[in-house]
């Protein structure tokens, strides 16, 4: 995202938040001073907040960080995802993450069959006829020996907690995928520490209340498709309020690189043995509020809420 793009994003954010503030004050019949006092009382992050700042925020002169915005929203029983996904401009801005650049660089690393064209995504449940073969392709890419190491027949009931979304281009070739499931944190840490395997993790997922969404693989041949895949599970996290954490457990270096560039803190690096060599398994974990305060992730999470039919975007 170029500098120019970001400035405009910021303008949109300012506008959305300023209208939120005005709406809140009117609904609760609060003056700017009243709002300041309320925030001071209800939260520890607004000790040095003055009324002038609130006035500036409302006039769109500046805006507080998403972290502070989220605290303010929470005081009024709302959350950033609701606020931002309801704004058509913000959602439109966010879709730039998955749109193709207006020109195609011909010297870029060319993919064997994908040439920045239309693609479509398909979400598959385990009972779908193509689920198994798509899952196999996804696992082959990911190369994580802890995911379904045995070749034995696995019932689709056992795979039920898994979410698989695949992206295809016009040649029906796979150009991206994401694989994730909702589990509880206790089981997830057991899995990350190799105390339990993937089948057990999925088994537990069916029984206990899920509070973490763990991404096992996420990939796209182009940055746009990559972002698109990410927007799928980020949106799931945003809309399922029972989910408290977002986690990644992957052996894919590209994904790890992307997460680190998005400033996501790495939780653990665990060496795993695979066909007599060692590969690294990277885990990441973030709380819901960390995700929603991350501008890039917030923008990606609202993309799937878009209702208009896309023209130059590949869906």
């Amino acid at each position, binding site marked *: 995202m170029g500098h120019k793009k970001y400035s405009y994003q910021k303008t949109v954010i300012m506008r959305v938040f300023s209208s939120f503030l005005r709406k809140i004050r009117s609904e609760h019949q609060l003056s700017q001073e009243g709002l300041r006092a309320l925030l001071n009382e209800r939260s520890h992050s607004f000790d040095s907040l003055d009324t002038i700042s609130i006035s500036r925020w409302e006039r769109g002169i500046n805006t507080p960080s998403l972290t502070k915005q989220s605290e303010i929203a929470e005081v009024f029983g709302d959350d950033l995802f609701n606020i931002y996904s309801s704004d058509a401009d913000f959602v439109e801005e966010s879709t730039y993450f998955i749109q193709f650049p207006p020109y195609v660089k011909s*010297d870029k*690393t060319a*993919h*064997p069959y994908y040439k920045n064209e239309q693609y479509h995504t398909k979400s598959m449940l385990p009972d779908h006829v193509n689920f198994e073969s798509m899952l196999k392709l996804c696992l082959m890419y990911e190369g994580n020996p802890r995911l379904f190491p045995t070749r034995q027949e696995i019932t689709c009931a056992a795979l039920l907690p898994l979410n698989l979304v695949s992206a295809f281009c016009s040649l029906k070739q796979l150009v991206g995928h994401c694989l994730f499931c909702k589990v509880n944190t206790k089981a997830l840490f057991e899995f990350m520490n190799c105390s339990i395997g993937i089948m057990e993790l999925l088994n537990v997922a069916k029984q206990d209340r899920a509070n973490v969404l763990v991404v096992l693989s996420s990939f796209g041949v182009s940055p746009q498709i990559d972002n698109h895949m990410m927007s799928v599970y980020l949106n799931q996290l945003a809309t399922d309020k029972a989910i408290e954490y977002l986690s990644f457990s992957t052996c894919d270096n590209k994904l790890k690189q992307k997460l680190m560039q998005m400033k996501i803190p790495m939780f653990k690096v665990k060496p795993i043995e695979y*066909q*007599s*060599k060692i590969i690294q398994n990277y885990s990441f974990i973030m709380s819901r509020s960390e995700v929603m305060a991350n501008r890039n992730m917030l923008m990606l999470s609202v993309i799937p809420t878009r209702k208009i039919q896309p023209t130059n975007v590949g869906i």
Partner: protein
Amino acid sequence: MSHNTRDNLRDFFNRYSETRRLSLYQALVKELGNIRGQTKCVDSTDSFNSLKHQFKGICRYTCLEFDAQIDAIMTPAQLYSAVDNMFGHAVAIEDEL
């Protein structure tokens, strides 16, 4: 199996920018050629093991260890065949780089 090898080789080179790719490719082909040549006239277990180790190193880097089934290689003839095979695939994709 052979289709995979070629794809994997392509994937490996695609990770790098164009300028890098060329020098990497030339180094790969040169090494494979060397190992192949030396395997033909290997005269001791030590030199055989050394060549096998070198080939293993290359396969590791290009993530082709599984495809090449290094662990199954027990004789110079098998090693020659595996190296030659990979050499062939590498040459085949030269135009794409």
